[in-house]
């Protein structure tokens, strides 16, 4: 009977092999994380697509997004619904191969320059003339359209009529009147104005526009410089120093709860919140644009919104484009549903906007008119790096009381460097 051989020790080769297998297993485990994409092969020959959304506040939107994806027959589409910091998750996702095929965002030039998104002119061609100018301008870089606008979201100031009447205040038409109104409406229970817990970064764009300036000029130079812009930023600082601003609310400016709970008499918010506000306050509210700085300035409504993009790293770009075309171009009833059945948004398609009954009466109609008259759309050349420097400038001016002219000079330097990098 042969003597059984004891367990032999590990040779170097065995060790390397075991190490390689373990490393591969660890790597595969990391790479195999759930990207929201359906498992390959689950739908026969159909492509498997992953679609990313940020979390909308309006009830029913997630179910709607899932329903749209399920209705699409030519590919398996899974929906990732992201609460919290969607921007950071998306930015990281677009760096990897585990990111989305189709996603919603706002276009900036850096995304195009680094090749993260593909042009969508071919799927847009037949219906391009039906999209409003702003929807196209916000998604166009070097003559190519990279995003299909899903919703137009005008942002303006909501105000409580009863509180205005009680304080004898009229809707302001200049920034000085806004500053005075915010002060007059502030009591020990209610603050005059809510523009976000960060002290008003969201007013960065409307305030410079109200002075007659802009973030960038037509030929892509810093447009927020000069004395009038400094004056516009100082007005926001004045409201902060007057203690007229609501700070530290449980929900931020995009959510209307501070306004509906009576914590503030005025709030910067979007059209999306109007159904909820109507439900809570009935007719006791109205809207007005961010007022003109003075007679030389202009009133402003920030015309934001979301667009859909196709990732250049998608495993099947053509299938992703086909899905986007089906969802946001061909199926007009779905865009109508998305814009009007939950919160209120203006459909970017002119034909749909014209027949949107819910937006043709009352404060909703007023908001649409304000958007038409005073709307300012995003400039794709304004990148997150520029926005970061600009926000630092605003924080220093508003919260620290820093000299606006000096802060503008610092922000201008960063923005100019970034513009040189992008445009040479």
């Amino acid at each position: 009977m042969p003597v059984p051989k004891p367990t032999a020790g590990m040779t170097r080769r065995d060790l390397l092999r075991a190490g390689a297998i373990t490393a591969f297993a660890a790597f595969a485990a990391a790479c195999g994380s759930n990207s929201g994409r359906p498992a390959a092969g689950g739908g026969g020959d159909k492509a498997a697509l992953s679609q990313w959304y940020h979390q909308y506040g309006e009830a029913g939107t997630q179910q709607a997004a899932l329903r749209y994806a399920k209705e699409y027959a030519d590919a398996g589409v899974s929906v990732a619904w992201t609460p919290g910091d969607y921007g950071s998750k998306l930015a990281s996702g677009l760096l990897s191969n585990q990111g989305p095929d189709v996603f919603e965002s706002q276009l900036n030039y850096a995304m195009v320059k680094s090749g993260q998104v593909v042009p969508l002119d071919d799927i847009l061609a037949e219906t391009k003339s039906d999209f409003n100018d702003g929807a196209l301008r916000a998604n166009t870089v070097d003559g190519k359209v990279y995003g299909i606008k899903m919703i137009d979201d005008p942002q303006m100031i909501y105000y409580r009529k009863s509180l205005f009447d009680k304080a004898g205040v009229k809707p302001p038409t200049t920034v000085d009147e806004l500053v005075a109104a915010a002060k007059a409406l502030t009591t020990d229970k209610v603050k005059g104005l809510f523009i976000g817990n960060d002290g008003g970064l969201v007013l960065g764009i409307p305030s410079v526009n109200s002075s007659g300036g802009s973030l960038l000029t037509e030929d892509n130079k810093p447009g927020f410089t000069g004395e009038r812009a400094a004056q516009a930023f100082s007005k926001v600082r004045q409201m902060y120093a007057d203690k007229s601003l609501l700070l530290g609310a449980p929900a931020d400016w995009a959510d209307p709860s501070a306004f509906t709970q009576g914590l503030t008499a005025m709030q910067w918010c979007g059209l999306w919140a109007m159904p909820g506000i109507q439900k809570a306050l009935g007719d006791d509210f109205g809207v007005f644009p961010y007022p003109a700085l003075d007679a030389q300035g202009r009133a402003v409504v920030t015309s934001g919104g979301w667009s859909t993009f196709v990732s250049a790293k998608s495993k099947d770009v053509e299938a992703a484009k086909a899905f986007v075309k089906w969802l946001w171009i061909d199926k007009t009833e779905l865009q109508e549903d998305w814009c009007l059945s939950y919160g209120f948004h203006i459909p970017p398609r002119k034909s749909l906007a014209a027949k949107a009954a819910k937006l043709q009466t009352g404060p909703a109609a007023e908001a649409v008119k304000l958007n038409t008259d005073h709307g300012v759309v995003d400039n794709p050349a304004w990148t997150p790096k520029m926005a970061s420097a600009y926000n630092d400038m605003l924080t220093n001016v508003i919260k620290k009381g820093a000299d606006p002219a000096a802060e503008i000079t610092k922000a201008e330097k960063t923005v100019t460097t970034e513009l040189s990098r992008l445009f040479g």
Partner: protein
Amino acid sequence: MSVRSAIRPASVDETTNPTASKSKGIKGNTFWFWVFVGPFVAGLLVFSYLPILWSLVLSFFEAQNTVTPTKFVGLQNYVDMLTDPNFLSSLGTFSIFAVFIVPLTFVLSLALALLVNQVKVARVFFRSVFFLPTACSYVVASLIWKLSIFNGVRFGLANTVLGWFGVDQIAWLSTSDPPWFWLPIVTVRLWLQLGFYMILFIAGLQRISPTLYEAAYVDGAKPGWQTFRFITLPQLRATSIAVLLLNLIAAYQAFDEFYNLIGSTANYARPPLVYLYTVSLGSIQDLGRGSAGALILAVIIMLLTLLQNKIFGFGKAND
């Protein structure tokens, strides 16, 4: 036949060559060593050393919105970060945070340990009560602090209490002048980590021999400050050093409470990790500058650790 050979028959090699037997035994142990340690080593390589190495590479390139850059920029990213007022200010924020949190945690956890150690009844209950917050997530605790205790409206807990005394509501997290935000930031971390350091001190206290106190009493020492000053504190030296070091390291890693309580846009309350997150992984996506900043921070941490080592005398023979 010995018991050993009865259990495991000797191999031909072992019977003929004792040296080979010893070698096989070591190889067997080596095999199991790698079975258990291998996955962790692989994890360390794949998830720590490889990213650090890649970060080093990225720090020499213009890497905006990409992790596979092509434009070499030399030391420019390092120069940019070292002259970036926001990065320098984030280091200042960390320093202020460390100045608050390290001594406070040390003193309060030691005080808690002394109190709980002296309790005669329900000792386990008290230890558990103070230790339980350690099991709570930083994110959850931060949200409770932000939404319930330190929100800036009239129905927040802190403002309600102030209201009883006629004090106006304070926007705790949204104001830098005065810098009220430090109160929620520091208290949330104290609440979360005091219990852990208290347990370390209790373990240290229980290692002190009662005979030392008895001898002191015989020599005329009074219970209280005298015995604490001349017996308890010196006997807790090793534990105290460990608590200080762990605290400082934890302060370096401050992220969750700042990010969840204040966010990443407030440039007056951004510790280095929050700022680097914003620059590299957040919306800006400048991985070149972010990597350079991360490596500068790593060097600073290493230097500070070496300095601590020097000051506390770790590694000396009498430790």
